[in-house]
């Protein structure tokens, strides 16, 4: 059997991750449930006054997106590391940069994309003005992709460790902060009627930078974790 071309290989990797996820629907549902639960916590903690919630809504929604991404990032490579298929991937002649990108793309499709698509519902629950919903979805689409790439770095570095869970948040939350700043700023700008374009452009720039550089760091991290 001849080796498949790189494009086909990566497409198969994405498809495999998606099939694995679809067979365990609760894995897909968990981040969304988490999102809904934490949204419900804020009115309980801050008080249900609609005006007040609307003020905080951009920040609240973005912080929850960040946390749910953080919680799912930990598992991106975990099961494949445990059963040894990650080691096979490292030995395969396919470029690790692209295979890693395939893993991250699958992760984003399952978490970030779905989150961005259901976010209007939660935005309405928090009384976010309707005019800002479009930019919320757009900023989440761009921003969660950056988060998935950054989270992959943390996941790759801690995948071999027994107690990676708490550590990964210490490692990658500082890296998430610029995304949070510009993501929530985009939504806030939309609420006040200011132009959203510059913020989305900055998020897009971060995404380009992350796509170019993060897979290298992830690949290096995986090699280190496998060697250890």
């Amino acid at each position, binding site marked *: 059997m001849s080796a498949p071309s790189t494009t086909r290989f990566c497409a198969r990797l994405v498809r495999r991750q998606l099939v694995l996820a679809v067979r365990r629907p609760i894995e897909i549902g968990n981040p969304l449930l988490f999102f809904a639960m934490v949204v419900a916590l804020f009115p309980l903690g801050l008080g249900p006054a609609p005006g007040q919630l609307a003020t905080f809504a951009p920040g609240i929604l973005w912080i929850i997106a960040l946390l749910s991404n953080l919680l799912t990032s930990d598992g991106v490579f975990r099961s494949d590391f445990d059963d040894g298929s990650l080691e096979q991937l490292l030995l395969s002649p396919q470029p690790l940069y692209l295979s890693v990108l395939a893993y991250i793309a699958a992760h984003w499709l399952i978490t970030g994309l779905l989150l961005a698509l259901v976010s209007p519902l939660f935005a309405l629950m928090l009384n976010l003005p309707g005019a800002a919903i479009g930019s919320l979805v757009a900023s989440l689409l761009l921003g969660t992709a950056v988060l998935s790439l950054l989270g992959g*770095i943390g996941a790759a*570095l*801690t995948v*071999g*460790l027994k*107690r*990676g869970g708490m*550590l990964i948040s*210490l*490692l990658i*939350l*500082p*890296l998430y*902060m*610029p995304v949070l*700043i510009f993501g929530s700023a985009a939504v806030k700008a939309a609420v006040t009627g200011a132009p959203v374009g510059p913020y989305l452009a900055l998020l897009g720039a971060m995404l380009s*930078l992350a796509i170019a*550089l*993060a897979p290298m*760091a992830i690949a*290096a*991290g995986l090699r*280190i*974790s496998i*060697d*250890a």
Partner: protein
Amino acid sequence: MWSFFHKLGSPPWLYGISGSILRWLLPLTLLALVAGMVWGLLFTAPDFRQGNSYRIIYIHVPAAVVALAGYYVMALAGAVNLIWKMKMADVAMKAAAPIGAALTFIALLTGAIWGKPTWGTWWVWDARITSMLILLFLYLGVVALYEAFDNKEAAGKACAVLSLVGMVNIPIIYKSVDWWYSLHQPASIKFTGESTIDPSMLYPLLLMITAFYALFTCCLLMNMRAELLRRESRTNWVRKLAQGAGRG
């Protein structure tokens, strides 16, 4: 040229040379620190608006400057370890992290103390302060990741990757004041163009910055020597050193 690189990879040589560097650098550093402190605290005019409270600048600014530079030292040492697999670079990276974290903490603490009389608050979520807090988290992340690995060689490499990733954040930290201008004043010392700080205050400040760089170097070397002894504790040269010290 090449023999120098080979020597750099030799722990006993590095231990020896760092010892002889410290012998003159350490007294010089302490002298500069005391001189800069006395000059800044006693012999400069009080600020026309902030009075004497501004004098904390002689600790605050040097600590912040060197904390940022220390991150580059750590990340570059990590890169050298990753690329050329130099063990001594790994030692330097591990030694730099806690020092950098301490300096960042000092910068944050003195900033808070300075903020109370001048801004009327201990803490504000200003861009530059927040960035320094992120820098502290980055340092602590490296320390925590190193401790989490049992295999110390892998720990060094993993931390090197992490600190290089974090380095992307440093330019953002550095430019943050220009991007999200708020309460914190922009940089007063400029390499190009006129500095907006009076020369009588600038010179002691520059002396203190130099002294803090030297202090960082001293701490780094001392930390590296301790780490070298720990790693090489089973080798002959360390045993000889310990026995020699015991006899002396």
